[in-house]
Structures are given as C-alpha cells and as structure tokens.
C-alpha cells in the first residue's frame, strides 16, 4: 500500500512538472483529486482492511490528499505568477516619451508682478482701487499741486484728448485724488492703485509710451516718514529677499513733501557695485514721500490733523529688475515663446 502511495506521489510530481497552463493543471487536478481521481479512488480500498489497518490507512490517505492538494496549489500560484509576469511584460511602456501637455495659461509678467504685490498689500489692509485712464487734467495734475505751466509737468509729457481738459493719465496718482475726494476727509485711507499710464516717450529698450504704475496711499493721524520706511522695508524684502537693505534719498515730487527716492541695496552684487546698480551698490526702485499739505487740503483733509504717505513703483522697472528683462518692449510684444508656467511669475 505504501508503495502504491509513493508511486502516486511520484507520478503527480512528474505530471505537474511537465505542465505550464491553468487548463493543464485542471486536468491533472481532476486526474488525481477529482471524484474519480486516482487518490480519491484509493479510499475505496479501505473497506477490505482490518480495523487496525483501517486506522493506519486513513492516516496515509489524509497525508497523500494534503500532499497532493498542496502541490497543486503551489503549482497554481506558480502558473498565475507566470501569467501575471507575461501580462506585465506585454504592458511595458517607454516612460521617457513626452507626457501629454496640459498647460495652464500664464499671466502677463506685469500682471503677475501686480498680483504678487496686491496679495502683499491686501494682507497689510490696503484696498486695491482702480481709476479711469482717460482722466481730467484737474485730477491728473491740478489737485496734485501741479498747476498749469508748472515746470514739473515737463517731466510728464502728456497725451491730451481735449486741450487742457482731458488726457491719458500720466500717473496713477489721480486715483489717490479720487479716493480722497470720495472720502470727503472723513475716514482714514489705505489703498494701492495699480494701473496703466501714458507719456509721450518714443518706445525703445528703456522707454515705453505706455507703462504701468502701482501707487499706494495711507492717511491717518500721526503718520510719519518712519511708517513709510517700515512699509517700504516690507515691500523691498518681499520683492528682493530678506537680506536687502533699504535707503531713503531726498528727492522731489510736487505732491509730496518731504519726498524721497526708495533705494534697495543691490541684490545682484550685495552692495559691492555691478552693472545693475551702476557701481553704486544701490538701486532706485520707486519714489515716495509725505502727502503735500496742499494736496490734503485740495481733497478735503485737514493737514493740521492728519498726515499720510504715498509711494509709487514702476511695475516694468520692478519686473525688469526681478526677472532680468532687459527690454521694456518685451512686456508688450506678447511673444508666447516667452511664457513661463511658473508660480513665481
């Protein structure tokens, strides 16, 4: 009997070794473990045995059954793994081929710069206000302490639409005027006004008849140049890094008194002197000052009670400095090959 069992074991092993598909495995399984399988049939022999032998045979039968089932199971797993491997191999792709391009659109670099600054100012409590580009001479000049014939008007050669009356604004300052007038001297003001501005300049690498300004205005009681300095520090560090230093340099604007130039230490050379800072170690990035008492009074604020600061940046200049653009016309050519999909533009 033992002999017979051993032969069956051997036979099963040999058969399993020869096969490689699940179908063949099914056949072998039936041949040995099926209802009429060779191992199943062994059990019919039990009736002819003595009770003593029956016990031993039963044990033997269980053993070979378990042995056979394990062996078939093992083979099944082997074949399944093989099949999976074949399938995976057949599905192999070249991962170095290009991906499907799903691009997001980019902001214009100037708009990107504006949005970045707006985010900063919104967080500091400044409202973002815009105003008309076709503007009255009154708001663009007169109320800003630039009466007709004022020599400082020369610096802003202006496009007029109607003599002495209507023009394309040469600065975004009229938005400050409009905001102050609308508030009627009643409440404090914290605004920035980004926007398009126009001057009679021939377009070249550093001049553009259309350009972009971002001005800011803050009016409250007891505001000083030190508040402006602190605010400028925040802007400068945001734009050019935590390491930059800031400097005020005395300057002139008809609508501020005192007036200052806003300088940052050269972020390119770290104040040592290079072509960007023209070897001075400093770069002028904007202008600012304390709102001129005449402007305050023109717009219904009492200069004896409140004071304020105003500042202005040329957005093109900031973008040129920050991104390393060397020709201002780049911003207006809209060459799509220049578009970057980066979060920091």
């Amino acid at each position: 009997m033992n002999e017979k069992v051993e032969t069956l074991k051997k036979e099963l092993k040999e058969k399993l070794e020869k096969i490689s598909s699940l179908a063949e495995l099914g056949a072998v399984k039936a041949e040995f473990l099926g209802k009429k399988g060779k191992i199943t049939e062994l059990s019919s022999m039990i009736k002819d045995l003595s009770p003593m032998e029956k016990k031993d045979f039963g044990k033997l039968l269980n053993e070979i059954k378990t042995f056979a089932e394990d062996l078939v199971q093992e083979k099944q797993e082997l074949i399944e793994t093989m099949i999976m491997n074949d399938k995976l191999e057949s599905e192999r792709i070249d991962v170095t081929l290009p991906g499907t391009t799903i691009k997001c659109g980019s902001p214009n670099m100037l708009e990107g710069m504006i949005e970045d600054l707006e985010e900063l100012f919104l967080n500091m409590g400044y409202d973002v206000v815009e105003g008309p580009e076709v503007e009255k001479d009154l708001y663009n000049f007169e109320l800003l302490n630039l009466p007709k014939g004022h020599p400082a008007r020369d610096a802003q050669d202006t496009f007029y639409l109607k003599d002495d009356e209507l023009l394309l604004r040469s600065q975004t300052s009229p938005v400050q005027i409009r905001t102050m007038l609308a508030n009627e001297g009643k409440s404090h003001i914290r605004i920035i006004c980004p926007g398009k501005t126009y001057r009679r300049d021939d377009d070249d690498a550093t001049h553009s008849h259309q350009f972009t300004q971002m001005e800011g205005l803050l009016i409250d009681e007891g505001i000083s140049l030190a508040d402006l300095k602190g605010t400028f520090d925040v802007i400068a560090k945001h734009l050019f890094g935590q390491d930059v230093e800031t400097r005020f340099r005395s300057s002139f604007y008809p609508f501020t008194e005192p007036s200052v130039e806003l300088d940052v230490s050269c972020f390119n050379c770290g104040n040592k002197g290079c072509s960007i800072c023209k070897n001075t170690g400093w770069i002028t990035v904007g202008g600012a000052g304390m709102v001129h008492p005449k402007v305050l009074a023109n717009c219904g604020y009492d200069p004896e009670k409140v004071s304020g600061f105003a500042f202005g940046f040329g957005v093109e200049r900031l973008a040129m400095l920050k991104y390393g653009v060397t020709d201002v016309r780049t911003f207006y050519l809209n060459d799509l090959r220049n578009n970057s999909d980066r979060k920091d533009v």
Partner: protein
Amino acid sequence: MMRISTSWLNDYVDISDENLRELADKITNAGVNVETVEEYNTPNLVVGQILEIEDHPDSDHLHVCKVDVKDEVLQVVCGAQNLKKNMMVIVSKVGCVLPGDFEIKKSTIRGVESCGMLCALSELGLEEDTPENHAKGIHELPADALIGTNPYNYLGLDDVIFNLDLNPNREADCTNHIGFAYETASVLGKGVEMPEIKSHPIDDSVKDELEVDVITDNCPMYNARKVKNVVIKESPDFIRERLTNCGMRSINNVVDISNYIMLEYGQPLHFFDADKLGQTILVRMAEKGEKIVTLDGVERSLTGEDIVITDGVKPICIAGVMGGANSGIDDNTKNVVIESAIFEPLCIRYTSKRLDLKSEASRRYEHGLNYEYTMEAIDRACYLLEKYADAEVLSDTITYDIVDKTPKIAEVTLSEINTLLGLDMTLDDVEDAFINLQFPFEVKGEKFIVTIPNRRNDVSIKEDLIEEVGRLYGYQHITSKMPSLAIKRGEYVGLVGLRKSISKRLRSLSLNETRTYTLISPEMDSKFGYDRKMSIPLLRPMSSDKSIVRQSIVASLLGVYEYNVARKVKDINVYEIANVYSNVDEEDTKLAILMSGDYISNVWQGVKVKVDFYVLKGIVSNLLDYLGYQGRYSFVPSSEISDMHPGATAVINVDNREIGFLGRVHPSVCKKEVYVLEISIMKLADKKTRPFKFKELNRYPSIVKDVAFVMEDKMSSSEVEKEIRRASGKLLSKIEVFDVYKGENVKEDEKSIAYSLTFEDETRTLTTEEVNDLFNKVIDEVCAKLKLRIRN
C-alpha cells in the same frame, strides 16, 4: 542735466581737500543727484621723460628710447619723428587701455623689446586721427610736468565734472555754480565766498546815453549798464576751459563772459551792440503778427503772449528766448549795453515752447530767478569785461524794479519736525541744519522762525523746511516702524475682484494673458464693428499707429496672433482684459479672447483638440458658470458683425441682454481659422449673481430616453431644445446633445441631432409607463410643431 566744474566750484566753496567721488555721494544722498563724476584719469598713463634715443638696428624709421617714468626706466620702440632728448611725453605703460579697447602689452618690434608706447593726442581720443595730426608726432608736455603723474593735468583736463540730474524744484538754484556751492557748503558745513564784482567806472553815466521803459507786468525787473571800447578777442584760458567743461562753446571774450556769468549766478545776461541799439529800450508785449529775425537768421512771427525788447519801435530781442540779428555782438562791436532782467517764467515757457527755442537761458528764466543775483550779475559782467575785454565801464545802472522784496518767512517747531519725519532730533540738531543751509533763523522756545533765502525759490512752507532739515540731518537716522492701524484684510474695490476671478479661471483653462497698447492705428480701430461708438483720437499723436484710444481689444489680439504666427508659434490661445474708451470719456472694461491652432495636443499619441467655435463657446460657458450665471446666458446667431464669419458668429446674452460676441474671424481677414470673443465686463457685472447655496441631490431614480430628430440644415438646435422643454414640462431635468449626423437616411440639406432626455421628480419614483407616454407625446409635439421627423 547740468555740468558742474569742480575746479570752478572751488572758487566759492573750499573743496580742495575733498575726495570728489565721496563728495558726490554725500551731495546725492542729501537730495541733489550727482549722476556721474567725469574725470580724466587713465590707469598706467603717466608723464615720462625721454633719457636716450637710439636708432632701431633693424629699421630706418623706428627709434629705441629709454624713458623715465619715475619708478623705472622703460625701453620703448617709437616711430615718431619729433623725438628729442629730455622731452616730456605721455607714456602708456604695459596694461594701459587706450580708446578703442587698445591694450598696451609688452612686445618685440623687429627684435627689440618694447615696454609701452609714447602717445599722440589722437591716440588718447583727444584729437581726430587725421594725416595732419598724425604728422605732428607724439605730444610734447611742458618741461615742468612732473614725471610719473597724470598727464591730463597738463592738457587742461584736470577738472572733474559733476553731472547733475536735477529735480525740477532745484533747477532754479543748482543750475549755477554759486547756487550749487551753497548746496555743497551745506553738506560740508562750510561757508561760501562770493566772486569779485567791483569794477572801476569812468565818469560817464549810462543814464545820459540810454533810456529804459517797461510797459508790461511780465517784466518785474530790468537792469541795464553800458561799457565802451571793448576789445573782442579770444577768452582767457580759464573761461574757455570752464565753458567747455560745462558743455558750452567758446565764441569770444565778450560773448563768453555773458555765458560765464549765467553758469556762475544762474542769471542770463543779454549783450546788445550799443551802436546798433540806439538810445532807447522799451520792454513790452509783442503785437500779434509782429516779426523779428533772430540771431540764427530765422524770421519769427510773434504773438501777444511774447515779451519783446524793442528799440522803441521794432523788436530787437525776444525776451529771455533769443536775441535779434539786428542788435547782437559781432567782431566789430565796440560798445555794449548789458541787460540783466527778470521775466515772467510762464511767458518764457510758452514762448520758448511755441517757437521750439529751448536754450540754457530760457531754461533759467522759466524756473525763476533770484533778484539779488540779477543785480549782482550785471556788476560782475562789468568787472569781467573791464578785466578781460579792456572795457571802460560807465557809472550807474538803469534799474526798473517792481519785484516784491518782502522776506519769505516760515515757521516750524521741533515737534512738528520730529512728528513728520519720525525722528528724535534735538534743538541743536535743527539749529545745525539751518546754520549749514545758511538760512537765517530765530529760535523761540522750540519754534524756529526761518527767513528763506531768495536763491531757494523752492522752499516756502513749513513742510519744505522740515524736508530741508531732514535731508541734511540724514534719513538714515530714521528707525523703521509700521503704521499702528486697525488690522483688516484689504479688498478689491469695484470691478477689480471680478476681473481677477475671470483671469484666474481663464488661465486655468490654458489661456495666456497678454498686455497690448491702448493706443492703436485708425486701421485697427476700423476692425470688428461690434457695438461701435465714436472713437477718441489723440490731439497730437506721436505717430499714426498710436493715434486712437481703442474701444475694442480684438484688433490688438489679432496683432498678437500675427506676431506669434510669424515666429512659428502655432497654438495661440490668449486673452486680455483692459479698459476701453469711446464717446469722449465713456469707459468700459472688456474681456477679449483669441484662439487658434490646437487647444490640447500630444503629437506622438495623435491626441488633439483643435480649436473651433465650440471650444471657445465651451470656454466662455465654463467661465460664466464659474462666475455664477449658469442657465442665464444664451448664444444667438449673428451675421451682422463686420470682419466676422457670417455663419459662425453669435452674440452672447445674459438675462436676455447682449454683453458681447464670439465667433470665427472672417476668412478675408484671417485665412486660417481664428476664433475671437469680446464681452463687456461692465455689462456682465450689472447682472448680479446669488451666493452659492447647496442643493440636496434627488433621492428618486431618473429615467433617460434618447431620440434623434431629422431637421433642415439651417434649423438651430436651440429651437428644437426649446420645443422639447416646452412639451416635456417640469419632469424633464436635463437635455444633452450626444450626436450630430449627416449621411445615410438624411437628405443633403438636412441634419440629424440626437438628444438624450433625463426625466425625474424630486418627490417620487416615476413609472416607466408615464415616462414612455410623456416621451412619445414630446416626440409627436416636436415633430408636428417644427415639422421634423424621427431618425430610426
């Protein structure tokens, strides 16, 4: 730009011990911008002396010299023919870089080593490189030149020039050396010494020979003096050099003196040839149409706005702008009448602008003059003419003077200064500042009562004084702080927020933002006649391509398209939001989109979504849904918009009000398929949206039924949809188009559109029978009403 000669400046304020570059920085930081410091100094270019000259052993024209350059004796091979022993020469040593990026290197010339070059002026870029100049050979310096020093010192080029980039408020006081000396002195805490003005007049008085009358309010001061028997010749070296260094041409001693004084005091003078002038000067406004031939030989027509100097009858000078040809100084002039006057700045400004005659003189008149200098300058002119033109100075000055001489006084307190500047200055600090500025003042408690000098016409109010104190004390002393204000988050005001939302969504839909010019050409302005209004032209455009304020952005985007196509960019999907203007000053904010080429692609996979009308329509629908207008907008075919394809264009309505259009650009404008859209953001914003509210999903199942209608080609899908909706009633929750078909079983001029209809009810489960009944009723009614048939 103003050129200041520092050697001239040194006449009035002692800067002999100053490092001029550091001084320039100090002055710049205090508020007068010294943009550049010009200095003649080339490294490794020195004075040398020729010790020995030998002929070159292997050349018939070269020489081998031994040259002393102080630290060493160099051997130099030189081809010049004017070499002499002991001659003082200009030596460029090894490492010296001459104009044209020509670097001197150690070399061997026909077997002889040469360690430098002896220079001609042309090689330093100081003379033109002509055969004549070349023949002069190398330049000989004076025998007393110091070996090893900077040779420019012996070429009259030792002056260091400050180029000032002046703010308009400092034009009046810093466009002359005395005024700039005060600024320099205030920075250095030094005094200012004024020039000599005392001449030695003869007994004759100008009052016996000249009569002056002023009959206009626009000339508050007119001084006249007279000198006789001037000798016209070349100016002395110092005047020539100083004028040249300040950018003015030397003419002759007399003319140069008038320019010299202008650069010294800022007071323009006018010299008349007294014999051409006669005995009368009458200052008046010109008569309209009056004519004068100016110094430059051009006949000019005058207006009632121009001030003229006349000889009593005819104009001899356009006041402050340019003299007449009939009265000027020439080589034969003997006797000179000197004018030192003040004219109304605005008049000079208008006249010089109208005649396009901007000069150094008009620039100074325009910014206002200091009457004290008007009087001093005329005496200084007499002094210089006496000294350098052998003039006999007549006694007396004829003066017409209605200048208001009330002292300008302003008051400021210490606390006002500290409050505005955010500083912590002491009384002493402020006193020091006013002393350095040389502003006379009185202190009462903590109040300063300051008399503002006439040279500073830019200072008048308290805040001006605060600025003066602050800039001298130094803004570097300010400690930064943040304004102590209530904490809040800022807001977008007006349309700004909506614009940002639109931008955000369009960028996420792959559209790139552009920024184009507001000013466009008439040709661009004539394109895309949608909702045309009167356009706004510029009064004086710089060029016709930028002469009109645009009322539409589409033409500009077409420009962007063409620019990029020319650079082989095929897929162009762009948008722009901008303010546009029409009807004098009517403002609108518009959004324009242009799409062409592929919207999404992966070439090697053959994946491609080509831009067509429906891509653009999908984008604008997406945008409107995002903004909260879902179900409130519609597209109506329109064939009336010029430059648009009549069969592929629609207007967009929101709540049945038109806000813009979209469609294909007419093939005659663009051969390739280009799609554009333009809507008014202002009109859109007029339609308010409701805040988002969550809606429970329907818990009862829905039933979907499909049907395909065959219809005439020109029938629009929206008509069919409208009819389906009407016939279905409220159980229909959704219609979707899932197929558009032409071909088998559909005639040539027909099309089939297949719709998928979803029926549901929020209160119960619909039965199959009732939906089938409804569906069949819908089909019957739609077919009957619109004369359609079903496609099987």
